[in-house]
């Protein structure tokens, strides 16, 4: 009996040794973590700049994961085709987090210790990104969160940046559009029950009250919900001027369809969650005429970066890109810019470079800068659907609205 216990424990220890052995092999000379982060030549001899990436390629958010991965590959290809940065090519090290926070943490360890990337882009949702952020901060490897909304992500430290608006900003912008542009007084909110929904609605409610409008009801639904007729029937009865819909593409497309089935004609205001060309506009086709939504990708933007991105993505993958893709693409471009600005591809230099970015021409608008907390400062785009195509509706540049929270 005792023997068996020992065999169990020894088996366990062997397994652990094998594991630590595995990671040891990949980094023979590194015994201490993240001590000296000198740029090292890759085994092939050619010097590359390794940038890490993770996204939920499998699991319930696989659609966004694929959009993100597509854009990450396109970004690296674009940079390398243009000759790389500082004469070096970028090497993409990408992982699938399966929409799980635990996996994001182990990926973070893998990227920072065995893969030795100099910077990382998160193409994932809040939960994995938020859980992984402290690991990057501790390893002193800059991470740019492409589209995760949770306000706490950037609070992990000075190496963590966000490429999209923190939740309440977009909510405030939505309120501005709803009350001022669309003239709504009585507003019903239909919100996905997660950090994305909660943080946007928080900003929205606050701003609507300030502008003299009224939120008459807030209804929540869970991620993956398909049946909205009970809620919509209820909202129809409340007779609002506008419905503020904080939803992702899958749920959002059903809300639009089911409103139509219930003959509801009330104005709908969406958010970047529905900005998924395949998932939302693909499913709805021409059924979304007149929809207005806040996002960060302006399809009518005449600047070359934006038009090139839309064109190249569509050519490469056969369908138009979405907000998730554009944010990921920009995250890579921003990192490239930071490397250029600091003239060095080390993690610390990249971090410092990020704070030096000023009026950078990104696909998702001109980035004014990143504040001390690592939050991006850029205008919020408002888009609308006309004749089945997405077009410019408005742009919110008022600093009172778009100023992200900062370190006091």
């Amino acid at each position, binding site marked *: *009996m005792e023997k*068996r*216990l020992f*065999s*169990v*424990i020894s*088996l*366990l220890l062997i*397994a*652990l040794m094998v*594991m*630590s*052995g*595995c*990671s*040891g092999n990949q980094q023979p000379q590194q015994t201490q*973590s993240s001590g000296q982060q000198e740029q090292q030549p890759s085994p092939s001899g050619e010097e590359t700049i390794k940038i890490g990436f993770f996204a939920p*390629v*499998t*699991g319930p958010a696989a659609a966004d994961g694929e959009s993100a991965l597509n854009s990450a590959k396109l970004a690296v290809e674009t940079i390398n085709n243009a000759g790389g940065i500082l004469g070096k090519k970028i090497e993409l090290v990408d*992982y*699938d987090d*399966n929409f*799980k*926070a*635990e*996996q994001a*943490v*182990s990926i973070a*360890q*893998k990227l*920072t*210790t*065995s893969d030795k990337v100099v910077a990382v882009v998160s193409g994932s949702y809040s*939960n994995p990104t*938020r*859980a992984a952020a*402290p690991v990057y901060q501790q390893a002193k490897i800059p991470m740019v969160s492409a589209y995760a909304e*949770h306000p*706490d992500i950037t609070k992990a430290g000075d190496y963590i940046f966000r490429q999209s608006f923190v939740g309440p900003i977009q909510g405030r912008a939505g309120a501005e559009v709803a009350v001022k542009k669309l003239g709504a007084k009585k507003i019903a909110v239909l919100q996905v*029950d*997660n*950090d994305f*929904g*909660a*943080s946007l609605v928080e900003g929205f409610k606050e701003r609507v009250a300030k502008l003299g409008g009224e939120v008459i009801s807030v209804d929540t639904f*869970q991620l993956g919900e398909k049946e909205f007729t009970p809620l919509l029937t209820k909202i129809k009865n409340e007779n609002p001027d506008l419905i503020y819909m904080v939803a992702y593409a899958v749920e959002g497309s059903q809300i639009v369809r089911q409103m139509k089935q219930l003959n509801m004609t009330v104005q709908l205001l969406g958010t970047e969650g529905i900005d998924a060309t395949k998932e939302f506009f693909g499913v709805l086709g021409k059924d979304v005429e007149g929809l207005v939504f806040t996002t960060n990708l302006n399809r009518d933007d005449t600047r070359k970066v934006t038009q090139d991105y839309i064109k190249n993505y569509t050519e490469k993958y056969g369908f138009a890109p979405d907000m998730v893709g554009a944010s990921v693409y920009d995250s890579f471009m921003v990192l490239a810019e930071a490397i250029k600005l600091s003239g060095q591809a080390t993690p610390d230099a990249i971090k410092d470079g990020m704070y030096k970015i000023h009026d950078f021409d990104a696909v998702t608008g001109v980035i004014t800068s990143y504040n001390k907390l690592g939050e991006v400062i850029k205008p919020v785009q408002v888009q609308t659907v006309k004749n089945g195509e997405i077009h410019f509706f408005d742009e919110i540049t008022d600093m009172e609205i778009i100023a992200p929270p900062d370190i006091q």
Partner: protein
Amino acid sequence: MYGIVVAINVGIFAILALSVNIITGYAGQPNLGQASFFGIGAYTTAILAGKYGVGFLPSLIISGFIAGIVGLLLGLASLRVRDDFLAITTIGFNFVVVAIFQYVPFFGASMGLSIPPLKLFGYPVGYVGLFIIILLLMLLVILFTKRMERSWIGIALVSIRNNEEAAESLGIDTRKFKVISFGIGTLIAGFAGSVYAYYMGFIMSYNFQFMTSITILSMAVVGGLGTIAGPIIGAIVLGLAPEIFRFVSDYRLLIYGAILILMMSFQPQGLVGDGSIFANIVRKLRPKTSGVDQ
């Protein structure tokens, strides 16, 4: 470092698999909601350590006990239902617990909860320290299970799994022992949850979903229910699978599903369970012992 983090993950899930093993493996009561107790432990620690600044050891112990008490209550309530009904009741319980985490602002609702990094005696405990804590905890659980296996309670639980009526006829209060097994199994899951909260630094209700319960139970079943080595090996195999198969990242889930199907089709007792190929080899190699404890 990456190895350590993976090992921490495997270790936490090994403890969880061992915990569900006491309920489902020894006592034979299906439990598809173990993640909810994992969650109760993690949320208790997040609230104690995050909101009230309580230290590691008290947080750990209280988390375990709260999970254990809720487990006792569920065990009591579950006495009315059996087998498949019990299985589905535990699934339902998992959904309700996750819904409470998701909706009640005290539990952070949809924004989740943060946990400050673990400190002991004023010094931050890194991943290595955490790993040692998890190993110690796992060792305790193994020793406890071992003791349980060899004492009257172990015999009582296994007899209940085999035949409730007969166990009852031998003076075993089956209701009491079922409830005790729920209490112990969920207490251990609560400990695991507490350590997990420190390890992750941030928790959300999503982490404790029904699918997590399935993962935990699959580990115990694939390794071999009712054994001690089984759940640990199951946790290592299924826990490492996603990391090992990273190189075929696109097919990882497919492989995971296939492992479950193949294992259950060809080794339904689990890798080291009674009657598995491995167990038979061990049985042949080992000289017969009377198994008497002095």
